[in-house]
């Protein structure tokens, strides 16, 4: 974290749906290679913000730069430099593991040869080579999510956005999912992750907590615990969301 190169720069981001303000003047920066946790209760505006950063939704106002591109006008350039995995499962059920990888790799303009080689490496690493030609619909949820994450970073993006990636998964699978996240971060991919699980918040380098469309706190997990005089992130979260 010594370089402190800013990769996501958000200043006064506002998103309104009619008169409802989903994101109320958000300002934050995300540094290259860090794991940035984006916390908040349901309906706090996390998904809205992540969709704007991914170019899926147009912001109402603010200055937003993602991987050096403007979120108002350069969404297609942003899309070329990011990966995305949503809480709604995103691989094609009726395609096999290898076909899904090849499809998404192809869309990002990877060559056939590159896709083939990287698929081998990936499946070996996941110890999943035997399942290569299995349909996604036949896989257990935990495996689907690990694969979806691997596909999201298959084209080696600068940033990967994860929107509640571990929903409905058992603790052991969640642990191994986070091993994949750490590995991606070590390889220089910035990870932007939303979650409900406070133990996962502890794994992040820095955490922001959103309440009612605003960022209520932003610091390292240690810093937050000290500031709020709490033993763990769970307490921090409860104190922040109840006080405001």
């Amino acid at each position: 974290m010594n370089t402190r190169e800013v990769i996501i720069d958000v200043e006064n981001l506002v998103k309104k749906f009619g008169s409802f303000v989903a994101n109320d003047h958000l300002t934050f920066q995300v540094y290259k290679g860090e794991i940035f946790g984006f916390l908040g209760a349901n309906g706090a505006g996390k998904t809205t913000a992540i969709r704007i950063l991914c170019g899926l939704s147009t912001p109402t106002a603010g200055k937003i730069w993602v991987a050096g591109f403007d979120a108002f006008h350069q969404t297609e350039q942003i899309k070329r430099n990011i990966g995305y995995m949503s809480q709604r499962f995103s691989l094609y059920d009726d395609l096999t593991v290898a076909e899904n990888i090849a499809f998404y790799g192809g869309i990002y303009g990877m060559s056939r040869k590159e896709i083939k080689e990287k698929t081998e490496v990936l499946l070996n690493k996941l110890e999943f080579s035997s399942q290569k030609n299995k349909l996604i619909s036949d896989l257990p949820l935990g495996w689907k999510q690990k694969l979806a994450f691997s596909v999201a970073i298959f084209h080696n993006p600068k940033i990967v956005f994860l929107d509640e990636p571990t929903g409905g998964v058992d603790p052991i699978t969640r642990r191994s999912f986070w091993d994949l996240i750490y590995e991606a971060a070590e390889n220089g991919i910035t990870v932007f992750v939303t979650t409900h699980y406070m133990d996962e918040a502890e794994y992040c380098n820095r955490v922001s907590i959103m309440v009612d469309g605003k960022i209520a706190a932003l610091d390292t997990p240690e810093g937050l615990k000290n500031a709020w005089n709490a033993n763990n992130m769970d307490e921090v979260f409860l104190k922040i969301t109840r006080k405001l």
Partner: protein
Amino acid sequence: MRMLLIILQKEFKQIFRNKVMLPIIFVMPIVQMTILVYAATMEIKNIDLLIVDQDLSATSRGISSHFQGSPFFNTEISQMSAKDAYGKLESDEADLILFIPANMEHDLYRNGNAVMQITANAINGMVAGIGTSIVSQTIMQYNRNLVLNYLKVPDTRGIQHQISTTYRYWYNPYLDSKSFMVPGILTILVTAIGLFLSGFNLVREKELGTIEQINVTPIKKYAFLAGKLIPFMVIALFDLTLGLLFGKLLFDVPIVGNILVMYTMAIAYLLVVLSLGLLLSTISSTQQQVLFTAFFFMIVFMLMSGLFTPTESMPNWAQDVNKINPIAHFMRAMRMILLKGSTMNDVLSEFFILMGTGIVLMSTAIWRYKKAS
């Protein structure tokens, strides 16, 4: 270009893996052609004719015998009362009743005229109208022969001076309804395949949530939409070929015109249908919505298209609506090409109307489909 190939590859794989859709794609043309062409026939046959003969004379038997063996009628002759006969009409056992009253022959020879009555169940107006006219024609014919015999005039001389009309039916000399129906059925086939398959496809990705993942990639909008259209264009053309082949082998439907002209028209028409399907799926969020709206358009356009009833006898407002009805244009072109051997020049106006409609719908669909909200 490579992106388009990648999308096409994915779409075809998904289509061929769909265990419900795939059989329909192959079976639909065959079933539609057989059942619809054989069963949904426009020919009038098998009318149930009840002859109530209360006269039981030579003349009445002579009349009755003219109806037996007619391909139009299933004839039953009885002496029941008028009341019983009406009962038969009511219970649907008879479509037409011919009453021959007692003393008919006596009246005919004594007074020079006799009266018979035809009663028709006109719930099906077409059966009633055509049946009645065949019955009265048959009786008039019989009457004329009777007069000739009675006057002892040699057969031919009396008739020679009558004005007679002969007729020829062009393009469908034997008035075979199959020749008329097959191009219509093929149109419906292509419409159903194109509209529903393309309509469901995109909205299904919305329902599953995979569209989000697609929208967050740098995929080109036109490549994605083309990838959604081309597979169904191919499938629809394949089904058209299969249906036509089946029609040729089974019913020997005429294919007078140039087959390439037909395919050109089919491609123009499919552009319209597929774009409409795509447009519906961009404005809908569930497959139910697409099904319902697509069904609405299909039924309205189909009823007005001239498949079952001639468009020429529709009221003016309906004919005006038909100017933008793609099914009507394509069906007319199909009949012209297949039955009359019309060339590209003859169907040029239909071609331009279809292309124009297709381009408008396609542009609207592309404009409506947004990668960001």
